[in-house]
């Protein structure tokens, strides 16, 4: 804030110094006429006034111009034009001879005012052209321009000391200025920044400036002697350098702009296209909604094709259609679109461009396009599906050339790409979310299934459970019934993945509550069937084994409800066999009749007898090469082989290793569960 204030105060004081210099010079002139070097002190005072006037204003305008934020070339040139108006205003009465009617004293004042206005114009235009020169150029150009200024200042300073210069110095100054001006005037690359909408305005402004400049030049040439230099007493070289530059530069700019006109369209189109694309991609980059991206695309296409009216219809899957219109009735759009779609797709040809003959050829369009005489219709296609359409309309014929068509196509493609990218991104995020959910579900399920069975007293057990997906329908659990008895349950909900896992959780709850009632196994299973029948879908069922170990009686009772049979190893006989007994899965018969299908079996056990309970994921595990399932026989053999290991842990590892050898790298496995149970 203080910097700004300081800057402003310096600016104002520089203006005041300049103006004071001018005022003093004018007063001196008014009282004494034009001083000569012979007037000694007065002459130097006069010179000082002139130089401070010149430099003060130069500095003021320089900072003023530099501090202003010009948005376009047009604004800069308009500033020059504005400052040229007072010049024209004072010159015209003089050139037409009106001023000779003024009284003598007033005439002098008029001349002084005129000199002031010319000087301001020169300094302002000099600075503004410098601004133009700086456009699109680097530091090298800047140094050159500074050099030009310096030259003006050095010349002024030198004049302060030596009033009259030798003619060769003046000549040399002219020569250097001429070279500098010639060099600077070729630097007109800012012209390419003049866009189509502005170029006519800029040309007119330049024309006006050049008219004023011509008047100024004419005035100078006709009244050479009485021109402002007679007031300044400065050698005309300095002023001429600045003035000459302004004049020549304005003229060159006008000429260059006229030559540039024919090619400007193409440059323009490319620039606009680039800007439009940047706009669309920027909006996509900032993750704006599809709606916003297409909104930008629509307005860019409308603007850059100079369309009078238009509409955009876009429908992404499962969302409401996005409809944008300009100067078109919203209710017409859908019927308009349908008519267009049928025409474009039925013809199969490249009919994006529909001019009056085409519009008239289709009565349904002609009636709807009320008054529009050319139309550009672009289908918005994503992959192979048509998602919508962009339609641009104009009141005159042949409103769309090939460039515009291409540009509109590019915009549409860009917007579609942006949409596509966004879809991919959203899908990725959604998938990540789902994976995260699955991870959580897995953690929860792992907590539902105990790592080891409870109540291992008089027997020991090892468990293994590997769901094929993150979660699965296999489960096992154990419940301590009393001091001597423990119930073990292993089961499998039909199906796999999340639905099976949810049912599995339900089953755990059912058994947790039923075991608390201390029911007979048969009764318990019947009630479990009732509970499952009540809440499971009809096509879903559960198979399980319910096993109760009684260590006091040294026996186990079990019910096989449609589950894989238990593999029973009898230590004394050193032999294993499957205990095949009758039993129906749960949730299959949903009536009291089910109870007739429940069979409980009781068996005594000996020390070191071993039970293997497993799910069908084990016996149905496929060898991907031979397509052969693992099968009951392999499992039995594997147990007989592994039984030599001392600890249960090692037996389990050996058996699992055998299964792994069989399935190799098969990734399409079912949930696998296995429990080894050995009696003490």
């Amino acid at each position: 804030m203080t910097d700004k204030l300081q800057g402003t105060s310096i600016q104002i004081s520089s203006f005041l110094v300049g103006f004071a210099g001018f005022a003093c010079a004018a007063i001196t002139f008014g009282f004494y006429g034009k001083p000569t070097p012979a007037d000694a002190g007065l002459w130097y005072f006069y010179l000082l006034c002139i130089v401070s006037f010149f430099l003060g204003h130069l500095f003021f305008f320089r900072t003023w111009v530099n501090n202003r934020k010009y948005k376009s070339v047009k604004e800069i040139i308009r500033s020059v034009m504005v400052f040229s108006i007072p010049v024209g205003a004072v010159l015209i009465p003089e050139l037409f001879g009106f001023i000779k009617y003024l009284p003598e004293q007033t005439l002098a004042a008029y001349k002084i005012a005129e000199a002031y206005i010319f000087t301001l114009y020169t300094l302002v235009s000099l600075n503004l052209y410098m601004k133009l020169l700086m456009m699109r150029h680097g530091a090298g150009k800047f140094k050159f321009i500074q050099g030009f200024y310096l030259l003006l200042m050095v010349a002024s300073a030198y004049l302060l000391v030596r009033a009259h210069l030798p003619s060769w110095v003046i000549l040399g100054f002219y020569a250097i200025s001429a070279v500098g001006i010639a060099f600077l005037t070729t630097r007109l690359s800012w012209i390419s920044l003049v866009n189509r909408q502005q170029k006519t305005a800029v040309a007119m402004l330049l024309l006006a400036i050049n008219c004023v400049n011509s008047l100024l030049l004419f005035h100078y040439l006709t009244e050479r002697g009485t021109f402002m230099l007679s007031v300044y007493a400065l050698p005309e070289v300095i002023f001429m350098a600045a003035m000459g530059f302004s004049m020549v530069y304005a003229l060159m700019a006008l000429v260059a702009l006229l030559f540039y006109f024919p090619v400007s369209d193409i440059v323009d189109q490319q620039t606009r296209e680039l800007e439009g694309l940047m706009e669309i991609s920027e909006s996509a980059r900032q993750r704006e909604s599809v709606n916003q991206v297409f909104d930008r695309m629509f307005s860019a296409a409308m603007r850059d094709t100079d369309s009078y009216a238009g509409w955009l219809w876009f429908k992404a899957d499962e969302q409401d259609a996005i409809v944008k219109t300009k100067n078109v009735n919203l209710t017409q759009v859908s019927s308009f679109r349908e008519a267009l779609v049928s025409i474009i797709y039925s013809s199969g040809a490249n009919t994006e461009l529909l001019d009056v003959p085409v519009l008239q050829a289709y009565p349904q369009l002609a009636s709807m396009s009320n008054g529009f005489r050319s139309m550009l219709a672009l289908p918005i296609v994503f992959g192979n599906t048509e998602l919508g359409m962009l339609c641009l309309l104009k009141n005159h014929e042949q409103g769309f050339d090939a460039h515009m068509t291409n540009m509109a196509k590019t915009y549409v493609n860009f917007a579609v790409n942006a949409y596509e990218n966004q879809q991919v991104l959203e899908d990725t995020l959604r998938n990540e979310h789902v994976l995260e959910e699955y991870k959580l579900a897995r953690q929860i399920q792992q907590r539902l299934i105990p790592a080891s069975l409870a109540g291992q007293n008089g027997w020991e057990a090892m468990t293994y459970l590997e769901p094929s997906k993150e979660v699965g329908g296999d489960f096992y659990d154990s419940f301590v019934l009393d001091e001597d008895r423990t119930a073990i349950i292993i089961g499998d909900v039909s199906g796999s993945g999340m639905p099976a896992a949810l049912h599995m959780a339900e089953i755990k709850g059912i058994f947790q509550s039923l075991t608390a009632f201390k029911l007979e196994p048969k009764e318990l299973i019947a009630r479990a069937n009732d509970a499952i029948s009540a809440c499971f879908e009809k096509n879903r069922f559960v198979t399980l084994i319910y096993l109760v170990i009684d260590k006091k009686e040294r026996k186990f009772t079990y019910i096989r409800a449609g589950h894989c049979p238990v593999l029973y190893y009898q230590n004394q006989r050193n032999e294993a066999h499957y205990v095949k007994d009758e039993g129906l899965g749960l949730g299959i018969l949903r009536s009291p009749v089910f109870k007739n299908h429940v069979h409980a079996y009781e068996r005594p056990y000996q020390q070191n007898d071993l039970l293997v309970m497993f799910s069908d994921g084990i016996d149905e595990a496929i060898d991907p090469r031979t397509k052969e399932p693992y099968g009951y026989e392999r499992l039995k053999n594997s147990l007989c082989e592994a039984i030599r290991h001392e600890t249960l842990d090692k037996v389990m590892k050996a058996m699992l290793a055998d299964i792994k050898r069989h399935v190799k790298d098969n990734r399409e496995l079912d949930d696998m569960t296995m429990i080894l149970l050995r009696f003490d």
Partner: protein
Amino acid sequence: MEIIERYEDEILTILLKGELDAKSSIDLDETIKMALTQEKTRIIIDCQHLSYISSAGLGVFISHLDDLKAYGGKFVFYGMNVTVYNVFEILGLHTIMEIVRDRFEAQTLMNES
């Protein structure tokens, strides 16, 4: 999986060819549902070319058991290979479903009731 229907003498025969997995179970379910709406409740399942049945496939038959019974119809299976039969047997389905050796037996059984 190929599902071929044939309706004659008021008996609907559904021939299953290939593997009845989770995906083809949905088609089979549709087929049976459609048959029920047409009151074709006497259904013979030809399993001669059924090589594998998943739990979802079993689920389809199980889910329609009660409905069929309510309409006075039933399923009769025939021509199962050992693998498929074992699946039915382990689950205990052989005790509640009628599974016979060949078409003749199936037809006889169907006409008995």
